[in-house]
């Protein structure tokens, strides 16, 4: 007889080494407390402002214009010919909810957290115009609605009851957006967030470091800016072959272990202390780490074990800096050409 408790204990054995330590947790906690306090302060300001502004708004005729997609498809002058990593939304408030600045930008759009009192409630995902190759398998419709006069649909991802739900709508011709719902963000609130969204143009993603070297033919696919603490700042890459499949057919990519395996990422976490030696790259089983005491950062790279020499060189090529546009943070050889 096999005891389930023994099997469960066994299932979590052979864990990889922890990336983070107590300092990282405390730093994330302090950031969260600061964000909560800021959120409450902002809420108070908005409440006062709303009290003053509401009579004026009510007295004015409806002047809301239909959304216009401005410059999201424009090629930024700093990176001619490369895929732009841009924020497609900006922070805004809807009642008690606050949509944060996007923390993740990728080939499939930008993502921002939706918070209430500093707690994550859902996410706003804006796809660039013309991009619609994302899929969530055999999802089911939960009913249709309208968002600013355009058709929208509540859906559940996957057939499984209790699967994640979202509101999908067209914010402009050929341009799709999603509000990811949760047990703490219902359909009506999701719709309110959708209706208050206004597209923004050319806001480049920034990160806190420059990479001087990226191994092989890896192409940048996704940027996590670190704005959504405690998620670390992270750049994620795929080989050119995997990137092309990913762009052409997301489901084929998701179903192919070999293509998914052709991935590599580098992340930066603030760390004043670390268990790792200062200035020395340590690699094991596809993970490399470098703690830089001078800059107070822990750099980590993850990829196939065969890529460890390249990852080591990549970590040593990192220069910490503030607010570096992604266009300038990665060598041109690792940037996807625009199609």
């Amino acid at each position, binding site marked *: *007889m*096999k*005891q*389930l*408790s023994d*099997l*469960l*204990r*066994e*299932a*979590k*054995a*052979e*864990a*990889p080494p*922890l*990336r*983070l330590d*107590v300092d*990282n*947790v*405390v730093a*994330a*906690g*302090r*950031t*969260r*407390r600061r964000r*909560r306090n800021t959120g409450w302060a902002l809420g108070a300001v908005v409440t006062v402002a709303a009290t003053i502004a509401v009579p004026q708004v009510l007295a004015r005729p409806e002047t809301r214009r239909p959304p216009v997609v401005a410059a999201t498809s424009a090629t930024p002058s700093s990176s001619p010919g490369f895929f732009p990593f841009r924020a497609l939304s900006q922070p805004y408030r809807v009642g008690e909810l606050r949509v944060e600045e996007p923390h993740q930008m*990728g080939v499939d759009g930008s*993502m921002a957290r939706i918070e209430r009192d500093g*707690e*994550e409630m859902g*996410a706003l*995902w804006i796809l660039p115009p013309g991009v619609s190759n994302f899929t969530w398998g055999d999802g089911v419709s939960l009913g249709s609605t309208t968002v600013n006069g355009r058709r929208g649909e509540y859906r559940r991802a996957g057939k*499984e009851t*209790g*699967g*994640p739900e*979202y509101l999908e709508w067209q914010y402009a011709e050929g341009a799709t957006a999603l509000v*990811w719902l*949760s047990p703490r963000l219902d359909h009506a609130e999701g719709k309110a967030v959708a209706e208050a969204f206004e597209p923004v143009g050319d806001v480049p993603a920034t990160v806190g470091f420059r990479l001087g070297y990226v191994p092989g033919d890896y192409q940048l696919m*996704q940027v996590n800016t670190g704005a959504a*603490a*405690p998620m670390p700042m992270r750049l*994620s890459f795929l080989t050119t072959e995997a990137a092309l499949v990913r762009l052409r057919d997301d489901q084929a990519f*998701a179903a192919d*272990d070999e293509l*998914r*395996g*052709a*991935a590599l*990422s580098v992340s930066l976490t603030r760390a004043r202390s670390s268990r790792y030696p200062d200035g020395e790259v340590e690699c094991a*089983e*596809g*993970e490399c780490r470098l703690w830089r005491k001078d800059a107070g950062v822990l750099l980590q790279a*993850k*990829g*196939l*074990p065969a890529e460890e020499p390249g990852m080591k060189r990549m970590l040593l090529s990192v220069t910490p800096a503030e607010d570096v546009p992604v266009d300038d943070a990665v060598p041109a050889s690792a940037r996807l050409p625009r199609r």
Partner: protein
Amino acid sequence: MSDREAEFREFVAARMESLRGLAYLTCGDWQVAEDAVLAALSRVYVKWSRVDNPDAYARSAVVRAAIDETRRPWWRREKAHSHAMPDRAEPDATHTVEDRLHIRAALATLPPQQRAVLVLRFLEGLSVRQTAAALHCPEGTVKAYTSRGLDALRRILGNDLEVRHEAAV
């Protein structure tokens, strides 16, 4: 450093590894598990002075964070990247390793909330009521998920699977 922060640091140092294991069993991905632990413990930090039972509070926060991670729209991509990495080289090819891979594969077939229920009940030894409190759901849901989860595991792992709390299901 205040006494409270020193207490919190001690707690994290002692519990982070086991909480990560709990999150891993819930979400099936070490990287996502670590993100969940960090997210949950940063919340615990904010409420530390008001928490009566840190172990129970952190356990509940971590498991719910791990479930939330799997519901995030970006999770699948994160998972894909994280899964891109081959499993660690195993030290040998004994039955232990086989069991480990088998139970991991079996757990992966269950929805995260069912996994969480099984882990809390049969690894952490919580009662139905305690599990319901930890997951913020009705006791009936815990009973239903326990039953469905065990059925699914038995279909995959065989009927010789033994559970200590089955009488309470």
